């Protein structure tokens, strides 16, 4: 999909015309942002129950008030050096949309940073790095106080690869 289109649809879903709010977090020194309306809650890191035969970046599942929520380590997802989980390590619980269904997932990040208002026009599409870096997960780049914030397209990110729900899996069962 065209990046501009994604931005447009992302903004349409927030229902705001003049910019959206993003929650930002730190990951290996970079600041990333996610649409704040998708954030369900922020909680500290707790032990998870690993799921067998899944990739390393899926840390496992936790019990979030009776719901089984999978936890994804974003560092490992991006192929970054994994970090020891410490007191600053937080899990951001997000609502991920796929078609018309929503799922709840958690992402492990280094630390939560801030909440920014970003005007639509200051959200720039990520440059195409060709095959070197996959920018599909990037909704756009925003500049706040001279620093770059990478706005993530979480629906795309958390429905890709091993996280994709295979409808066929049910049929084969």
């Amino acid at each position, binding site marked *: 999909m065209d990046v501009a289109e994604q931005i447009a649809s992302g903004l349409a879903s927030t229902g705001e015309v003049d910019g959206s709010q993003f929650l930002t977090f730190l990951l290996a020194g970079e600041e990333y942002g996610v649409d704040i309306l998708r954030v369900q809650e922020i909680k500290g890191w707790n032990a998870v129950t690993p799921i*067998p*035969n899944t990739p390393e970046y899926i840390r496992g599942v936790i019990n979030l008030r009776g*719901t*089984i929520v999978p936890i994804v380590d974003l560092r490992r997802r991006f192929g970054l050096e994994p970090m020891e989980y410490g007191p600053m390590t937080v899990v951001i619980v997000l609502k991920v949309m796929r078609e018309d269904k929503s799922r709840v997932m958690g992402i492990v990040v280094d630390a939560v940073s801030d909440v920014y208002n970003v005007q639509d026009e200051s959200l720039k599409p990520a440059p195409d790095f060709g095959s070197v870096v996959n920018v599909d997960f990037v909704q756009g780049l925003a500049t706040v106080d001279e620093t770059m914030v990478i706005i993530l397209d979480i629906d795309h990110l958390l429905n890709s690869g091993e996280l*994709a729900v295979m409808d066929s899996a049910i049929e084969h069962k």
Partner: protein
Amino acid sequence: MSIDMEQFKATFIEESLEGLDIMEAVLLEMQPGMADAEEVDNIFRAAHSIKGGSATFGFSDISNFTHVVETLLDQVRAGEREVTQEAINLFLSSVDCIRDMLAGAQEGFEINLEQVAEVKAGLDRMLGSAPQAAVPAEIEPEATDGSPAAGGWKIVFKPFPDMLRSGNDVVRLFRELADMGEMIPKVELEGLPALVDMEPEEACLSWEVTLNGSIGREQVDEVFEWVDGDCELSITPLGDEKAPEDMPADKLSTAVEASPAPLQAAPLVENRRSNNDRRQGDRRKNRSSSENSSIRVGIDKVDALINLVGELVITQSMLGQLGEDFSMDKVERLKDGLAELERNTRELQENVMSIRMLPISFAFNRFPRMVHDLCGKLEKKIELKMSGEQTELDKTVMEKIGDPLVHLVRNAVDHGIETPEIRIKAGKSETGTVHLNAYHQGGNILIEISDDGAGLNRDRILAKAIERGLANNGDNLSDAEIFDFLFQPGFSTADVVSDVSGRGVGMDVVKRNITALGGAIDVESRSGNGSTFTIRLPLTLAILDGQLVRVGEQTFIIPLVSIIESLQVESSRVNAIAGSAELYKLRDDYLPIIRLYDAFGLKPDSASLEDGLLVVVEGHGQQAGLLVDDLLAQQQVVIKSLETNFKKVGGISGATILGDGTVALIVDIGGIIELSQNGRKCANSAAA
């Protein structure tokens, strides 16, 4: 066997009302000339379900009416008829009619037959205009006919004094008459006693009514059906001044028993708010958001819950008080309080669970009657066997599985079982058998519908699939692939469209409903020996008796039903084939050993077989020994789906939350045996 049809009738009506809401919503969105196949399919399915259900419960009016609607829709679906605005309007008014008829069936008041007749006439008209579809002969527009008198009717109506006590309301009768045409009532005051002698509950008046308009005799009879026997009644055609003809006494139909008249008191004037208004109100209420699913819970269960919650609150405040100034001498009271709390919590849990779980007999019980009726209709001899009726199933799952089961049983009876002559020719007993069976297996509920009929005709299905362009002539297809065509929308190999089945709706609905529940359906069939449909449903919210086992630092749950026994490994009984596949000699059997830590990629306490325990399990008809580090407690666990927020994981059927709040995974025995048979291949592809 006596079955209380009343409870199922309520279910049917509610389901039908939901179906009507869907039909209405889709119809309202439909644009003339641009019928979306999906939309038409949706309406068609809803109509089909209503027809089937109403026939089952003996509401022949509704099923006849819906059949006409369905036939029209079928033409639209097949692309033979364009959707005009007129057609949409007609369908919408049909929806209203069906809803009125349902409401009538539910509450026992009479419905506005004129409106129904009018819509039906419209439908018939549209059907009559080319293309002519196959309308089964038994569908006669009986309500519209019945010698309409050109001029109208003269009705002399003299209620017996105690007529009002039986719940009849004269006002209602007149209102209905007035709906039919121009009504000129004339009151006879002769019987009116003096005011002091008047009994308020007695009917003292009588009427002479002139009804103008082209109205069928039956319609008029229908209005007075309820008061038959409670009054003197004569109905004569206008301008025909012959001696008044007495109303035949046998007019009182058996429908009266099925739907008792509402016990209205007899306030004559105040009750002006017409039934129509009220229904319109209900309708509006029903219309809101057809997406919302609901479960029906008896008020007594809710009351019981409220009681329990009340007790819980009392216990909690008692403990709270105790905690405010606690001293060691109050330890006994604290213990008592905690025991109380535990009891309350457990009762609360049991009650909440009991709301959702019901034995599958609720879904099965409607079949004996259905099969019986179908047998009569189709002139077949069929015995219905049922087993595993006590298998518990989540209530919402049960509700959704009801319709698919009806379709499957209907198909088995209609297409599966042959007629007695053919059966005798084929060397089988005259009486066919349809077997319904339900059981738990490896975290699933399996429902089997099998018949000993002719089985599926593989070649015919294939031919039909090729004809419909679903398969190519040269394709080399397996039986399973061919049988899968049955689940395509509109696929039917039946030669004749009957009232029972053969329209090719059904199977796709069945599959859709089952996959919506996260389940699957399999077909097995051997020509001449019948077919078996197996529905596999996950236990989305079922409870499971589980054995907690420990592997390394992880706790897993093995469903207790799968466990045959647990034992310590004697190394002398272990054999290894080709150095890798390990077998354990248990009595006379050799069991494959599955090292759970290996299958799940974990670090065990010890890799030595002697240090662990072997849990002998059975799944998918195969036995295996699972090597675990330790056996922990046995407990009931609530199954939580992994798929809600994640996806299906091989060898895991779900998850649950343990007492300490952590998540434990439930082992899918069938899955893990399969996983180990496929060796690392499966695990590798999952990790890729």
